């Protein structure tokens, strides 16, 4: 039967793989299993096999594709420029269409609809906050339980969506912030740092009311039409802004791919998207944001895959941490996935845990109790495995603290 949707991996895309195998050692699942079928090259060949009619979208194919974390470490080392992340999403879209299991239908609804609905996220957050406060994690499904323990305290903070804030320096322009599906209710202090820093550098910050979830999780899981709908809504919501900032690496990576999800207008928007770490690092380099002279000791740097591999942003978080007075400590020269990988932690808890433990060991070996991670999923994974003795935070949060301290006062300029 081959492929049936417009999302399918194309012959041109797959032909960019010449099977050189340079991706293999960078693939976490290949490293764990030694299986060709668990390697990027193997997965691409499986996609080709379906395209050429040597194989079907059957259970074997589904397992080969679903075992992939989607970390895209392979893509960053591919000299043939194979668009692995794109064809993976294409293959998943085929699976979602040809193999619509109950779990996949549920995910289509959760990732494609519920996350884009503010009321649903609020209700889920309220329930989660109660569970968290009561310590009643036993009522959660086993697969979710560990990730849940990595959540920050779900305090009843106000949301950023729909707000705007004026600059507190020479005006530089206007920046629009992606509120995100769970960033706003669960990680609002990251937004607080982002908004505070942008204002301090001279940006007026707007968090457009009409925006929705970026659609990354839906896209990665193969729910293409939902992902397209979310992309279109965001393109409209963010129209007219010169700078669009996201402070979750998974979101900024996905927004940068809107050219695929929302056509030419999406492409035009994608060109204006930056991850917060890129923006802040540049503002520090330009002297618009200060450097701290106060040494704060070591910080272990965890590179989110969708920052380092998908966006190739490596130096920016380190620059920011240095400006905060920290001494960045490298934990893994290959920057292998921590196993969180969006929904993977829930769908494949065993593999996720194994990779998470490796990452946690690397952090422990680095000898720092502060860990910087620029993505919420990685943060939860690390916190759940490192325990309360370690502090896991976004680099801009750590930097914002330093900036506030340098100013010698609580930041009155941040109106809440």
């Amino acid at each position, binding site marked *: 039967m081959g492929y049936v949707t417009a999302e399918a991996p194309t012959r041109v895309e797959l032909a960019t793989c010449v099977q*050189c195998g340079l991706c293999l050692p960078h693939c976490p699942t290949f490293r764990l299993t030694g299986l060709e079928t668990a390697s990027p090259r193997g997965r691409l060949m499986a996609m080709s096999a379906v395209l050429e009619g*040597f194989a079907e979208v059957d259970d074997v194919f589904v397992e080969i594709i679903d075992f992939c974390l989607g970390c895209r470490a392979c893509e960053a080392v591919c*000299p043939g420029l194979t668009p692995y992340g794109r064809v993976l999403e294409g293959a998943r879209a085929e699976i979602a269409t040809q193999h619509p299991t109950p779990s996949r239908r549920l995910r289509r609804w959760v990732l494609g609809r519920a996350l884009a609905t503010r009321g649903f996220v609020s209700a889920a957050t309220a329930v989660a906050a109660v569970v968290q406060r009561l310590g009643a994690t036993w009522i959660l499904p086993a697969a979710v339980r560990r990730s849940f323990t990595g959540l920050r305290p779900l305090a009843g903070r106000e949301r950023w969506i729909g707000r705007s804030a004026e600059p507190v320096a020479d005006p530089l322009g206007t920046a629009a912030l992606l509120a995100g599906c769970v960033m706003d209710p669960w990680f609002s202090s990251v937004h607080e740092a982002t908004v505070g820093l942008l204002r301090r550098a001279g940006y007026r910050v707007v968090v457009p009311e009409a925006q929705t979830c970026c659609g990354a999780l839906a896209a990665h899981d193969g729910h293409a039409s939902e992902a397209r709908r979310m992309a279109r809504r965001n393109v409209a919501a963010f129209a007219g802004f010169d700078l669009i900032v996201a402070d979750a690496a998974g979101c900024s990576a996905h927004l940068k791919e809107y050219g695929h999800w929302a056509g030419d207008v999406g492409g035009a928007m994608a060109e204006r998207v930056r991850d917060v770490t890129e923006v802040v690092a540049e503002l520090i380099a330009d002297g618009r944001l200060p450097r701290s002279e106060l040494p704060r000791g070591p910080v272990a740097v965890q590179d989110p895959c969708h920052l380092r591999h998908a966006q190739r942003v490596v130096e920016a978080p380190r620059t920011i941490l240095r400006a905060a007075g920290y001494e960045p400590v490298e934990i893994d020269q290959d920057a292998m996935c921590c196993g969180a990988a969006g929904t993977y932690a829930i769908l494949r808890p065993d593999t996720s845990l194994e990779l998470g433990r490796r990452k946690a060991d690397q952090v422990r070996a680095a000898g720092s109790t502060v860990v910087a991670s620029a993505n919420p999923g990685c943060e939860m994974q690390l916190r759940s495995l490192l325990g309360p003795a370690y502090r896991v935070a976004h680099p801009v949060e750590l930097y914002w603290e330093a900036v506030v301290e340098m100013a010698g006062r609580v930041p009155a300029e941040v109106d809440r």
Partner: protein
Amino acid sequence: MSLQTDLIGLLGTDRVLASGLDRYLYGKDAGVYRGEVTVVALPETTEEVAEIVRIAARHGVPVVPRGAGTGLAGGAVPLGGGVVVATTRMNQIFEIDAANRCAWVGPGVINLDLSRAAEPYGLHFAPDPSSQSACTIGGNVANNSGGPHCLAEGSTVNHVLGLEVVLADGDVLVVGGKAPDPIGLDLRGILVGSEGTLGIVTKALVRLTPNPPDVRTLLITFDSVEDAAATVSGVIAAGLVPAALEMMDQRMTQAVENWLGAGLPTDAAAILLAEVTGDTPAVEAEADVIRAVATEHRAREIRLARDEAERALLWKGRKSAFGAVAQAAPDYYLHDTVVPRTKLVETMREVYEIGERYGLTMMNVFHAGDGNLHPLMMFDASEPGALERVHAAADELVELCVRNGGVLSGEHGIGKEKRDLMHLMFTPVDLDAQARIKEAFDPEGRFNPEKVLPAGSRCFDFGRPIPEGAWI
């Protein structure tokens, strides 16, 4: 019981793959050939490998070892079905003996992982194929792999001190060891480079080389391929053996630069990457000699890598070249041949001529220092007749190199690719001698059959008597 059932009995279901798609994925390496796989087995111990070999013998099927599948000559591609023994899970480093500068490793250890593990001792594994970040020690041993730094250090055979090998009857043979000069017949030299046709390596004792105290890496830009090639001959003629001396032509440089963004000169006809290692005064002096020779041959620019980061970036570019060609066309085919360094200039000219004659884009990246060419021909396999045209051009390339006094293969092995070209190099007596060794190790011909030696290598295949003195 079926072959698959027996293997599952030994390894469990997780380490035996037999679905259609699994077998399809293991049916190919990094080259252009696709083979036929019956079942894939992933052993973790020597005993399991021995048992797999016995099971295969019982069922009368071939056994084909496979490492990371980065080979280009079809060495790991089973031609007539059989058990593919993937050694990727045998990736343990058993011992690093820093004092004796050697290590016992499993065949599935990745080349670069070994060097990383040896780094704290100031040591590394010298053979560094372009695929070193992915390829395995087992594959290096099987193919006697080389790499840029083999110019000064020699290829894998110079770095193997001992081997543990599973033989055709499942017995485990250990040859060599830490003693510098093992007594008896030195079987290591026969096993290294035998491409899985004589046995399966289950452990290797490899030499580790001290990291050089200092290094200089030069990127030299030329306006003609001839000038670059003449510089290579000139450097060697000046009495230098640089640690590495690599050439890339313009198309190749453009593809690599497009991916890497290392600031490589994309308008240059050719670039040379030259590296010298040793004590600081020595590397300074050698770098000066290279600069002088290059300048004499109209080098346009000579850039010295400022630091380790820039040096690493330049090498990353060189070692990613094969993958980068995917930007130019969906398929590529390359030949790994050798010519004497003194013939580089005219051979390169003829290489491009062959490309033109067959209407094939030719890209070149190679170990110029030892005359080891890698002409890559770009094509689209889905285009009817393209592959045949490529093979015809490829055969002509090999003939050209042999005619110019070179050899069939520099480092990638013979595999299936050059099997039928062996007669260009070897007399019937040579081939018969090799075939008799194969027969001694593998009387039933079940280890990686139809590889390396062409049909009819054995003299009695023609009904002729064995020539006197052909072997022992």
